[in-house]
């Protein structure tokens, strides 16, 4: 039930976001991710890239009909993650987690990860007070 609600909420938020998305003037285009609020999805880790410039977490998330949606969560560099308590073996394939983050504006199953909640309830923030980027490229608001 919880999974259903989480996924349903995520999908509902997604739809609302895509319908409500305004057409930004060129100078209003900001980041790839909707920074205005966070979304939660529950899934199973398929792989975890502990790499520069970003680490990536890949998870299979079931939608309301039980179909698998493949999610990608972008995180900071390994060095910055380590400073927030992450390690290269923090996650492995098969781990059940909840992903919380800012979702992609184009409706794709992608997010800028803020934190994960492990099956045992432990929360791990990415410590990203600062937006992710290739160093910073790509995420800065134009204005």
């Amino acid at each position, binding site marked *: 039930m919880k999974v259903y609600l989480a996924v349903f909420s995520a999908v509902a938020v997604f739809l609302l976001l895509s319908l409500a998305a305004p057409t930004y003037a*060129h*100078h209003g*285009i900001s*980041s*790839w991710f909707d920074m205005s609020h966070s979304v939660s999805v529950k899934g199973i880790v398929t792989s975890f*890239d502990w*790499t*520069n*410039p*970003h680490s*990536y977490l890949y998870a299979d998330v079931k939608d309301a009909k039980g179909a698998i949606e493949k999610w990608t969560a972008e995180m900071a*560099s*390994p*060095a*910055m993650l*380590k*400073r927030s308590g992450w390690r290269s073996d923090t996650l492995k394939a098969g781990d059940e987690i909840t992903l919380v983050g800012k979702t992609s504006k184009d409706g794709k199953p992608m997010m800028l990860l803020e934190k994960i909640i492990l099956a045992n309830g432990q929360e791990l923030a990415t410590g990203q*007070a*600062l*937006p992710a*980027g*290739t*160093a*910073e*490229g*790509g*995420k*800065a*608001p*134009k*204005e």
Partner: protein
Amino acid sequence: MRSGLIFPTVVLILMVALSPATRGQSSTSLPSPMPDISGVWLLEKYQPALFPKGGAPLQPWAEEKFKAANPQTNDPNLACLPEGVPRFMFVPLPLEIFQVPTRVVILHEGIEWTRQIYMNRQHLKDLDPSYSGDSIGKWEGDTLVVDTIGFKDSTWVDAGGLPHSEAMHLVERIRRIDHDTLVDNLTIDDPKAYTKPIRTQRTYKLKSGWEIEEYVCEENNKYSHKEK
């Protein structure tokens, strides 16, 4: 006083009066200690755009170039190219400052780039334009004054895409205002690209115990727009 003692007394007085100790210098004549700005520092607040609400004082051609800049598609940094200076100082990853007699060296974790500020010379003649420019520095009291020229014009001034010309002249005043806080006051003077100088400030906090780690930008870069 006996006449025989006058001369030695005068000599003694002169020796004392003219000695380095009396004149306020140490007896070994070392220069005054250099202010210490060394350590690992991290931007206190990420401010990607110098003019978040628009209004940068751009020359017309620079305004056109700015309109064509798109942080999502054509930021040179997306291809792991260096941010260049001054954007180097705006990157939200830790940097470490080292001080050696001839240079102040800043090693930035993002993207494992280094700035060298030469303390022992003037600007080189016939500079080849570079990402970081040619930086020279001197101390004014406890403030490191850094003067940089000789820039490539392919870098962005900020993450929002503000352009600059090769004639950009950057002056920074860097000061450690307390043990844990470093402030860089930057003046970007580029009359070719801007109608007036741009002044901005960045604050960094000391990160004791942090080490600058490896950051191989091309390891798993999904944002590169380089032509293959």
